[in-house]
């Protein structure tokens, strides 16, 4: 009676996790042993029956997860320093408020740990200052598009936008009216790039938004072009200022804007 020996093989046989030798020996045994054959049948029935216990995944979950990761991309890449405790007003997202308090605490702790690790990692990964600037600009632009808060001062009038910056920055950006060239000023905001406050002018052309980041930089950088993450990014220097324009417009159109500014 080898039943005990083969009985242990019944599950692995069904799972396809058995050596060829054992397999043929076990099958031969099943043909002569009603008890083990019944066990094989039982395991198969169980497998089939178990399927009813699968629960459907809520359709909103995939959106939730994707949104959370998108936010992570923005937050981590934007962090100016590892472990910095910037006093920025971070608004808790809706899902975060919805969750129960203990989960929120847990999430906060996990998030803080994750951020410090991820912050340290991303910091070490950033090769150069220019790369960091590029990262910051892309994330700032994407975030403004995602959150729909690209403009802090909404005005089509250059004479409103320019003074608005005056009290908020230690420099005054050039604000030009380019509507004749079909670049329409919609406003401006302050953002944070490469560890400093910068001016951002928002222009629109057709339905596309263009963010122009401006800050003083004595170095005259050669004009640059990049296409990070499907956006076009054009940079240039003029009169002691560094300009970076980003949009999903073509590089050609961004260069046109660069010439006009």
């Amino acid at each position, binding site marked *: 009676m080898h039943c005990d020996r083969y009985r242990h093989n019944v599950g692995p046989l069904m799972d396809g996790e058995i050596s060829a030798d054992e397999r043929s020996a076990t099958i031969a045994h099943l043909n002569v042993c009603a008890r083990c054959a019944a066990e094989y049948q039982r395991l198969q029935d169980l497998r089939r029956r*178990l399927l009813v*216990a699968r629960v459907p995944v809520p359709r909103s*979950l995939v959106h939730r997860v994707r949104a959370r*990761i998108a936010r992570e991309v923005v937050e981590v890449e934007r962090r100016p320093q590892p472990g910095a405790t910037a006093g920025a007003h971070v608004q808790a997202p809706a899902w975060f408020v919805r969750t129960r308090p203990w*989960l929120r605490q847990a999430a906060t702790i996990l998030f803080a740990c994750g951020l410090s690790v991820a912050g340290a990692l991303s910091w070490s990964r950033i090769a150069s200052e220019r790369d960091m600037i590029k990262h910051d600009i892309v994330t700032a632009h994407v975030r403004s598009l995602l959150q729909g808060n690209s403009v802090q001062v909404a005005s089509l009038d250059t004479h409103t936008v320019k003074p608005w910056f005056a009290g908020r920055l230690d420099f005054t950006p050039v604000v030009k009216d380019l509507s004749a060239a079909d670049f329409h000023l919609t406003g401006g905001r302050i953002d944070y790039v490469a560890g400093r406050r910068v001016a951002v002018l928002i222009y629109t052309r057709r339905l596309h938004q263009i963010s122009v980041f401006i800050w003083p930089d004595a170095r005259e950088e050669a004009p640059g072009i990049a296409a990070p993450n499907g956006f076009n990014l054009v940079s240039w220097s003029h009169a002691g200022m560094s300009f970076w324009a980003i949009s999903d417009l073509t590089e050609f159109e961004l260069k046109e804007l660069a010439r006009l500014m």
Partner: protein
Amino acid sequence: MDGQQNFERLALPHMEAAYNLAYWLLRNELDAEDAVQEAYLRAYRSLDSLKGTDIRPWLFAIVRNTSYQFLGLRKRRANVVSIEEAFAPRENSELEAQEPASDQQSAEDILVNQSDHALVHIALGKLPHVFREVIILREWEELSYHAIAEVVGVPIGTVMSRLARARDLLGKHLTEIVSAEGANAL
């Protein structure tokens, strides 16, 4: 975002599996959603540590660890309820909820179908976590013993013995519940 796109391409197709694993460890939809979200975030952050071609063992291990962490938090918060208590006793409410309301056509058929659904839920819920997780990974996700060992972090021999035990226990629970129900009906 290349990393993000890459991650989504790899991980999003397995969300249904991840959610089921989390749900069956936590036995609560909201907690399972939170656990999956947290696990995917952690997975995204540690994508560099992914080795091999199949993302599932790696991803499910993160989902599993996150779920257990949530369980621990829940237990600490409840402060009095043990994990197993928090899990097991749902059967009465579930059975009641499954009572057939209609006496049209074959009432018996409806009873059998609906109660089988409920019975399997209850029986699976009664399994201790260590058995529940291996049987889910094997029967639903069809992971190899080797992959399950990777998810759970135990030797393959342990996976095999747990799986065999899980199948025995599950069968036992199913017959017990059926006979208990039969006794109630009388």
